[in-house]
């Protein structure tokens, strides 16, 4: 993350070396390069590799390369840093990848609640219906959807 220049408009910046405890409510994005402990609310929060956010976070978007702890509620979450023990992340969408520097996300004991709750009964019903479909109606597996792993043997 190009921290200070990541946002061109107005934003709240917590600089490296700054530690802030308490409640922050902002109408502009928050960039954290230092440490915030407490309740945070705003449209967006960006946690730099040096940043630490611990507490109750309620934002539209969260992007973190730093350290997260507490309860995070957001529409969209993007993580490529560390997630401490007893952290709960509730999000509509989550993207978690290895950083461009090759850093992996490190998890403590935490909980991820992302998207709608998967429906087991519906999934089983769909798969059972597929089992009842005549073999010639079964489409060829979508080759492009596979990121890695084996390719099935050619059909027929």
């Amino acid at each position, binding site marked *: 993350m190009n921290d200070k220049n990541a946002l061109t408009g107005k934003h709240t910046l917590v600089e490296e070396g700054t530690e802030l405890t308490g409640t922050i409510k902002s109408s502009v994005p928050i960039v954290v390069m230092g440490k915030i402990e407490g309740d945070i609310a705003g449209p967006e929060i960006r946690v730099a590799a040096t940043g630490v956010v611990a507490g109750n976070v309620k934002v539209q978007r969260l992007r973190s390369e730093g350290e997260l702890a507490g309860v995070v509620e957001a529409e969209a979450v993007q993580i490529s840093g560390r997630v401490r023990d007893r952290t709960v992340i509730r999000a509509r969408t989550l993207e978690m990848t290895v950083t461009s520097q090759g850093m992996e996300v490190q*998890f403590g004991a935490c909980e991820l609640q*992302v998207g709608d709750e998967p429906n*087991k009964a519906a999934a089983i019903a769909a798969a059972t219906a597929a*089992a009842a479909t005549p073999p010639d109606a*079964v489409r060829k*597996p979508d080759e492009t959807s596979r990121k*890695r792993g084996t390719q099935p043997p050619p059909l027929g």
Partner: protein
Amino acid sequence: MAAITRDEVIKRVGRGDKLERIDLKGLDLSKAKLVKGSFERADLDGANLEAADLSQASMRRATLREAYLVGANLAGVNLENADLEGAKLERANLAGANLTRANLEGANLTNANLAGAQLSYAQLAGAKLGRANLANAVMTHAELDEAYLGAVAAPGARLNNTSLAGANLEEAKLAGAILDEATLSRANARGVDFTRTSLVKTNLSGADLTNADLTGADLRYATFARAQLAGARLTGAKAAGLIGTGLPLGAGAVEVIWLDLSPAGDGSQRVENGVLPAVLMTGAVAASAPPGGESRRRYFGRGDVLRNAALQFDAGAQIEIDSLFQDCTIQLGDDTELVIGPSGVLADCEIVGAGNVTIHGKFFEKKSPGIVGLRELHVSGKGAVVAAVTQNPERTRFEFETGCQLRVKIVPTGAPTDKR
């Protein structure tokens, strides 16, 4: 009401008459001498045979439901296919008896002597066998689910392919016994003496092996997923292909100086010290990979359904599942690649081992943790996972794509797992 009297039964047995198919229901035959009596297909339901002498009797296909046989002498008796459901057999002498395919569900065999008895395919679910003598008994394929076998003495017994799911074997003596391919999932095996016992391909998932003695046991290809090993002794055990517990062992919890990882179990691949916790937690499948390391591919196609299966894929295998799997356990060797395709649904399943898993379909655990010890877990934008995930000792590498659906609890190695 019995067809004949007690005295008549004793008299006719003494004469050598055959009492086949006779109705002796509820008759009092306590302390009767009925040696070598012939009671094939006889109805002895509820009969009182306390301390009776039925040694060498022929009782094939007889029914003895709820019969009272406490202290009876049944040495060498032939009870093949007999129905002894709920029978009281405390302290009975069944040495050398033939109980092949007999129904002993819920029977009480506490302190019974079954030395050398034949119990293959016998139904013993829920039976009580506490302190029974099972030395050299043959119990292959017998069903002993939820049975009580506390403190039984079964040295040299043959229990291959027996089902002992949820059974209580506390303090049992099974030294030198053979339990190959048996199921001991969820069994209470606290303090059991398994020294030099053969447990090849045995399923010990979720078993409590606290303080068990597995010294010199043959554990090749056995499954220990979620098994408790606190205080267990394992020195000299053969462990090639073993599937580890996936649970933290705790400092000094297991007494083990060395393990043998040679596929042949010939002691040629001893491992010691630092390697041992990893072997017991994540398994030793890599050690049993075929020479050359050629990968094997498996594809389970869309529309297929697989239920109640335990699948094991050795190191280097590549698997893709586009089917419905229900109540299945999948054991992955080191760096095994498992892809759950877009149509794949794994419901009430578990995945154990140091493999790499990509989920484009759906995974729902049965018991928590449903995913144990993976090196990598990748969930694509179409994927869904409902599970607790116990990380690999070297930390699992996670990747989640936008759009995935997750109800996931991540448990780092070393932390206790949360029972749902």
